[in-house]
């Protein structure tokens, strides 16, 4: 369960309205693969990931990043029920994809860096604090069905 104050919810939904979900998603996933290269282990079928430029320009990375961030957007619309929202995805990531939940934490923090990069001063410490709660909540929800 994630506990955001009313102000925090407003900060999150306000900023999210300005997020270019497809673009930011591609950038976040790309940066995850560049900054933490061991995360590439899940993406053998994605083709050329041999350099930062190759990763960032890779169409499969962009497409998958967009998908991931759209999903995050669903979470933001349902902050009071993240576990329910991500229940099926949690099962998928455990049973079929075999992804260590630590990766969700890494991606969450990379996303926070991407938001900072794009929003500059609008990404105030209070906004960051609110988003840190959201990304932790989403990561925990995605890990909830692991066994």
């Amino acid at each position: 369960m994630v506990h955001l104050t009313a102000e925090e919810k407003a900060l999150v939904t306000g900023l999210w309205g300005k997020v270019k979900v497809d673009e930011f998603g591609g950038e976040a996933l790309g940066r995850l693969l560049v900054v933490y290269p061991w995360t590439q282990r899940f993406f053998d079928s994605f083709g050329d990931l041999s350099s930062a430029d190759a990763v960032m320009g890779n169409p499969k990375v962009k497409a998958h990043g967009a998908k991931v961030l759209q999903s995050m957007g669903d979470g933001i619309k349902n902050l009071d029920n993240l576990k329910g929202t991500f229940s099926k995805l949690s099962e998928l990531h455990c049973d079929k994809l075999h992804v260590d939940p630590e990766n969700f934490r890494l991606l969450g923090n990379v996303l926070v860096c991407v938001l900072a990069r794009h929003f500059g001063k609008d990404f105030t410490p209070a906004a960051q604090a609110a988003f840190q709660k959201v990304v932790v909540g989403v990561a925990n929800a995605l890990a909830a069905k692991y066994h």
Partner: protein
Amino acid sequence: MVLSATDKANVKTFWGKLGGHGGEYGGEALDRMFQAHPTTKTYFPHFDLNPGSAQVKGHGKKVADALTTAVNNLDDVPGALSALSDLHAHKLRVDPVNFKLLSHCLLVTLALHHPADFTPAVHASLDKFLATVATVLTSKYR
């Protein structure tokens, strides 16, 4: 984890572009850390931690200066930060998990103020650099 020649070049070049704002960024990173990760405040009961606090700004400058020392000695970070390493091990004893939290907030601050220079490759090198510093500062803990 070892800093490659490219990592070192990336870090030096990026750091050179901070334009004297390093101290200010250090303070902002601490501020962000205290707000996003309130458990970190437990190490500063003697500080005024309200945003804009002079103590936080002063401490931010200390942190930034230490990082600059590391940047200027990338071939021997353990040597350059040896005294700070002793301090953290024997006096401050900040739990190692907190270095990741501050490192993350430093990256956020740098990304925010230098969006164009904070490329994915530079982001990777900076993350490695901060992890290296954290390892050095906790290296004498036990």
